[in-house]
């Protein structure tokens, strides 16, 4: 795994499938790790539970985070990874159905880098995913890995 890995935190299999389809349609070939709830996402990031054998130094280039998740919700996942030295600089894009003011406020408040609403129209959804991949994986310069780990 490299910095090009995308961590998709999504509990809805339809949305997962559609997101993956959109990425594929837009020729984004990066490794995509899917966590189906908040706990799994945290296990992956901190190499615990079923991910205990994973190299903790290998962190995803961007996290696509849904908010409404079983066990540990998206905002809690965000809070915990921002509180940890290792993960606090990873770009996080909140990708959700909700545009509730409170969710947006809390999301940005906890350090989200973007907040994108999933459109109902799949064409527009696909376009959004394409732009996200393009921006966060190609255009955007990620924080230096060494710094990120030492900071």
């Amino acid at each position, binding site marked *: 795994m490299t910095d090009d890995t995308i961590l998709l935190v999504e509990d*809805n299999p*339809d*949305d997962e*499938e*559609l997101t993956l*389809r959109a990425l594929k349609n837009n020729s984004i070939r990066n490794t995509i790790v899917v966590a189906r709830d908040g706990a799994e996402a945290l296990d992956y990031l901190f190499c615990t539970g079923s991910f205990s054998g994973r190299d903790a130094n290998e962190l995803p280039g961007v996290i696509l985070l849904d*908010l*409404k998740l079983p066990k540990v919700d998206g905002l809690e996942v965000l809070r915990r990874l921002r509180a940890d030295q290792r993960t606090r600089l990873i770009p996080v894009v909140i990708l*959700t*159905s*909700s*545009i*509730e*003011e*409170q*969710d947006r406020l809390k999301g940005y408040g906890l350090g989200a880098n973007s907040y994108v609403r*999933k*459109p*109902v*129209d*799949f*064409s527009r*959804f696909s376009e959004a995913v394409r732009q996200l991949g393009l921006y966060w994986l190609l255009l955007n310069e990620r924080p230096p890995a060494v710094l990120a780990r030492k900071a």
Partner: protein
Amino acid sequence: MSTEPKTLAKQTAGNISRDALLKWRLPRSPQQRFIAVGFLAAIILRAFLFFVAYHSSTQFEKWNNLVIHTRAVLKSLEDFSSAVKNAQLAAVSYYTNGGEPQVQVFSHAVSDAHAALTRARDLSADNSNQQHNIDVLAPLADQGIDLLRRVIQLRKDGKSGPDALKPVNEDSKKISPPLVQALAATISEENRLLEIRTGEAAVAARRARFLETVGGTFAMALLVFMGILFLRENSIRANAVEQMERLNSDLENRVAERTAALQTAIEQVRKENGERLAAEAAVSKLNTELEERVHHRTVELESSNKELEAFCHSVSHDLRAPLRSIDGFSLALLEDHGDRLGDDGKAHLQRVRAATVRMGTLIDDLLDLSRITRSEMHREQVDLSQLAGTISSELRGAQPDRNVEFAIASGLQVKGDLRLIRIALQNLLGNSWKFTSKRDHARIEFGRAQTNGTSSFFVADNGAGFDPSYAARLFGAFQRLHAAADFPGTGVGLATVQRIVHRHGGEIWASSAVNEGATFFFTLEPQIHEQETI
């Protein structure tokens, strides 16, 4: 409380009488001054009269003493005269009849005459005229006495008969007239004095009597008059004092009455206070209950608000997710298996996709509507004219090919929530924009209107308008008066506008006719005479 005013009143009365006493020393009123002057005049007059009367009585006494003195002189002269006569009688008797006792009588008479004359001389020592008269009289008297002694001697010599007396008689005829004359002059002088002195004494006595009578009477009258005035003044004063005392007593009574009334009033107030306190306690209790109920309701409302928020959250999240799946997989079907579906199948799938997108829009509008109800109000000064101008530019920008004339009144200001008012104006102007889409010369106006004494804003257009009989449904959510094919929309816009207007305490109403355009009137602050309808 009830005894205090009386004590006070008495002290006041005491002060007044002390003041009155002080005032007596310096009479203030003309009446009192007049009486004081009158008394003073009477006293002065009395003193003057006393002085004059004293003087008069002294004068009278002096003159009286002089009269007595004069009478004494006259008495002495009479004594002298009678002594000389006695001596003469004794001498003549001895000469005629003899007898030694007559000689002795004669001697006594002579010495009496001498003594009387000496007394007269002494008494009239102050009167030179009388001294002179006596000086004349005394030698003549001595000569007369000598003649009588010669008569006695003649008898002693044994002579008798008238012839022997002839020489004596001759001498006597020479002496007698001057002697009688001198004596008469002396007596006359003394009588003159007596007359003068008696007159003077009488004058003094009369004067004293006159002064005593007239002056005394006048002084008495003055005193009596002043006395009457004083008594009258005193009586007036006494009346005044009595009246004052009566007034004081009245005052005391009234004070006592008022105090009693006050006491009653205080009791009343105290009682009423008690009642009021009880009422207040009841009100306070009711208030507390009310507050509790309000608090309870608030808690309920907060909880239902939270429920509503949770509902909206789940609507926005959970309802949209399946829609996204339907649309997404429909598209996937079209893309991956389109060739096996045929044109009909593709068309059907497109309709499925259109419906899902439409439902997504409906859910979004519904969420917007609920958000408008729930969001907090931030009131500030809003420039409606500027806002309308901005929105009109946005509309033009979206469809630059349309020919629409905007007429926006300038300087329209209102106090309200900018964000909400912007949404309301966007909806109203957007509606006008939409419903005039079939006009060659569309006209949209925004301004202020006066209807039935109410100042309102309005958005008017010359678009499709609506049937006024459906006006009641105009502001209901998802209510549409036009076919979606003619004018697209979800039917949430006017419901949203109405909620915004109501949240500002305003009202919204519309007038229109089919194909004659529509005018929407709205206010953004409570109208006093319209509060019943709000």
